[in-house]
């Protein structure tokens, strides 16, 4: 989808369920990908990252999957908790001299119901 808009995709889950948030990225030259969590009124907070030479990476309760063939990234959150409610952004970084310059996806609003 487009990255500009007033209505972010939403995902609503029950506490304890697993959540899957998807992201399509645009630049086939991107070699580094990050998921950020952003709570209302705060800056983005790092969750997990993955480089393009990997297709899966696991953290604590989170897993990121990368499919370079279709330029798709997903974030899986196990046993989702109310504190996980936030907006989740994927971000891509091109290689070379791009330093930490990131291009963000549109974001997904995750709501976790107790």
């Amino acid at each position: 989808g487009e990255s500009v808009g007033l209505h972010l995709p939403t995902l609503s889950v029950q506490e304890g369920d697993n959540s899957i948030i998807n992201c399509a990225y645009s630049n086939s030259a991107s070699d580094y990908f990050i998921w950020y969590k952003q709570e209302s009124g705060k800056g983005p907070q790092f969750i997990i990252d993955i480089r393009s030479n990997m297709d899966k990476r696991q953290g604590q309760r989170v897993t990121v999957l990368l499919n370079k063939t279709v330029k798709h990234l997903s974030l899986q959150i196990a046993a989702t908790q109310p504190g996980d409610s936030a907006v989740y952004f994927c971000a891509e970084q091109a290689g070379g001299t791009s330093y930490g310059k990131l291009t963000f996806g549109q974001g997904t609003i995750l709501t976790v119901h107790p």
Partner: protein
Amino acid sequence: DAMVIQNPRYQVTQFGKPVTLSCSQTLNHNVMYWYQQKSSQAPKLLFHYYDKDFNNEADTPDNFQSRRPNTSFCFLDIRSPGLGDAAMYLCATSERVARPFFGPGTRLTVL
């Protein structure tokens, strides 16, 4: 704790009145970034400094300027704020190719 600090957290200015937002870091990172995030949108990079080298994004309006007097501090100057400049302004820092670490943001309101 090492961190990125933004001041003020909330800034109100009048249409056309210059405003400066401040960012400081204790991480000693050599790259500092300014992102603009409008309501319900993703952050968008305005510019960044790699040490003292300034790098402007092609579509960043001339109305936005930045200064980095030393490693720790970076400022965002908006010369003539318009209503469309109301947004959250996020400062971030990183080592050269590492992931950026974001500050809490400054929410700018333009009256």
